[in-house]
């Protein structure tokens, strides 16, 4: 197979990622124990008649998808694949509360229609008049990884241009509830050495145009993705990592930058904390959830971070755990974890 090139990104996150020039210069802090995404002025990306009806996740998804397509200068694709843990949660919550509060009466369908998990992918397909493959993955911390794995298979099956993205939104009530369940805390400093429990719940939408050829806008190449479900120990993860890298004739010492999914929760981060000393022996290491917070598809923000690092050939100080100032950033590896259950490896290179 020819390589898979990342040729466009669109990112709506708690950081100023809407600004194409922004490169992790300074990070916006969390709102105490959670993050809100900084949303763009949607008028630039979505027709007003559509915008009026769309829920926030749909707006964030359609806009980020549009930004990625524009950056890659692509107008039609061979597949649209999205990942989302909770889907259009705001609409689900709205329909649910209307139903409960009115004892199943006087309901209107709009929020029910939009609550369907594949709404973002469907809306993008509808706007683009794209009749091609359209999938939505909804598996927790594997939602975006599953989308990437699918995309890599589709390229092997001969597809040429694919739009993939991860979308998550939260609501004020949901944040309150997660806090009530003792799952949140203010970010520990540094995030990779937490000794206490709690994440910073967050949201965002990150899209990518993948193509089978290099263009002027190419950022990096996506080589491979693997998921690990409930690994028991750091030894398990390390063993799987060796095999994963070996299949690309690589070992850990050849990884220039490792992007690690420390969430700030001591239990969930346990395995990553144990892996860190080994990895930073030979590789530079960065965090990313201190920038984007934690959500099911934070790995899409990790892919954005890794691609930008490869493109700029700079390790941002705001993310750096270990900076070896490599002369060339060639191989970048993302190791993510979600709730200490869903682990993944994503391998990228410069092109």
């Amino acid at each position, binding site marked *: 197979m020819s390589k898979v090139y990342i040729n466009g990104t669109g990112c709506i996150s708690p950081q100023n990622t809407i600004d194409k020039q922004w490169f992790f210069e300074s990070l916006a802090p969390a709102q105490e124990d959670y993050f809100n995404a900084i949303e763009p002025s949607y008028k630039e990306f979505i027709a007003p008649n559509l915008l009026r009806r769309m829920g926030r996740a749909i707006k964030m998804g359609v806009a980020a998808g549009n930004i990625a397509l524009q950056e890659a200068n692509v107008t039609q694709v061979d597949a*649209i694949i999205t990942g989302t*843990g*909770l*889907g259009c949660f705001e609409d*689900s*919550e709205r*329909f*649910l*509360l209307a*139903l*409960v*509060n009115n*004892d*199943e*009466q006087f*309901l*209107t*369908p709009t929020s*029910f*229609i939009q*609550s*369907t*998990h*594949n*709404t973002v*992918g*469907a*809306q993008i*397909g*509808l706007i*683009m*008049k*794209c*009749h*091609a*493959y*359209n*999938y*939505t*993955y*909804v*598996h*927790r911390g*594997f*939602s975006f990884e*599953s989308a990437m*794995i*699918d995309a890599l*298979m589709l390229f*092997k*099956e001969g597809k040429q241009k694919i739009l993939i993205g991860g979308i998550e939104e939260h609501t004020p009530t949901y944040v*309150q*509830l*997660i806090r*009530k*369940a003792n799952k949140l805390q203010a970010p520990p400093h540094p995030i990779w050495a937490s000794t206490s429990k709690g994440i910073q719940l967050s949201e965002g939408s990150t899209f990518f145009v993948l193509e089978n050829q290099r263009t002027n806008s190419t950022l990096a190449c996506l080589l491979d993705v693997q*998921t690990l*479900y409930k690994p028991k120990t750091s030894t398990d993860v390390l063993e799987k990592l060796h095999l994963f890298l070996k299949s690309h004739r690589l070992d850990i010492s050849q990884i220039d930058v490792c992007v690690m999914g420390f969430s700030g929760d001591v239990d969930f981060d346990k395995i990553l904390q144990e892996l860190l000393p080994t990895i930073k022996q030979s590789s530079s290491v960065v965090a990313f959830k201190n920038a984007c917070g934690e959500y*099911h598809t934070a790995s899409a923000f990790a892919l954005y971070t890794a691609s930008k690092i490869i493109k700029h050939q700079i390790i941002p100080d705001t993310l750096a755990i270990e900076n070896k100032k490599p002369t060339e950033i060639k191989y970048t590896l993302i190791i993510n974890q979600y709730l200490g*259950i869903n682990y993944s490896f994503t391998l990228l290179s410069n092109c």
Partner: protein
Amino acid sequence: MISAIGNNVQECFQSLAQSKTGIGKINHLSTRHKDDFVAGEVKLSNEQLAQLVGDANPALNRNSYLAMLAAKEAVVHSGIKPNDGKRTGVISSTTVAGMGKTELYYKNLLEDAEHLYVLDTHDCGDSTERIADYLGNVDYVTTISTACSSAANAIMLGSRMIKHGLLDRAIVGGVDALSKFTFNGFNTLMILDKEWCKPFDENRKGLNLGEGAAFLVIEGEQALKERGGKALAEVVGYSNTNDAHHQTASSPDGYGATLAIQQALEMSGLTPAEIDYINMHGTGTPNNDASESMATKTVFGNNVPKFSSTKAFTGHTLAAAASIEAVISVLSIQNDMIFPNLNFSTPITDTQLVPETELVKTPVNTVLSNSFGFGGNCSSLIFKKVKA
């Protein structure tokens, strides 16, 4: 498979062969509309399901029970050994996920510490991970949600991952339990028939919701050969396309459906004339059945194969529909039977397509199964008899 027509494949087969619908009065779902509508409920209470699963964990919900039972049945039936070192995937699908329980507690959850666990069981991944943990030794898990075509896409993904050498076998399917959320959602769309649905009938009024789960074990040829297993049928064609017409309605000409059927046929290497039976999506809504009929006419012209929708047996089970119908397709191939399209009397004026209305015993070597969903999602699968 567990559905309104039986708690396992054998029971479901008996109901199909005896033209016995599972759609009737609502007993388990607590809704103010329970006396106004019929639905295809699984005939077991949550307590009975918990007992069958053998797990009293209160965090388990109806969706998980159904998924675990159906997946376990598929694995036991297949004869695969969980510990044989083969790479196994669980690829499931759902639309409602844990909503059936979330809707009971969400409103007062801030003051209700006891039920805060619904935050962890609300999402679509929950039932899939429950299956994976119930079965053990699973290397890959993922969940798809593309509305009413979801399980078809799970079957397709499993097949592709095996072809790509990423897995040796996959347990694929879907689940959806009835909830007030989906029930009221479909009711606001005004596409529910209060009486038995009448797929492909000129006077059809809408769909009946159902619930259930079905899973299939898909194995690569190599893995199957190594253990000396015998396949029930072969997945020879599949395709996923998008109608890109409307968020909830299918296009009048069924463009997306036409593409899906054509591409699946092309992949299978079969000609339209070689399809013995079509298990239609056939929900019974005016829009779906008209659109699907048009697509069928476009692909098959005047030689439309024998067809039926089995949703008048099971109700529309949403994310589970395509896997329930995949099992029905396999049963059709195994038993050389075409199961009837119940409640049909008058063909749709424009297309004049007439489904099979009685059980037909005839050689069935190939089955096309269609599934379409909100968001324009169109999926077609083709199953073929394995040569002896």
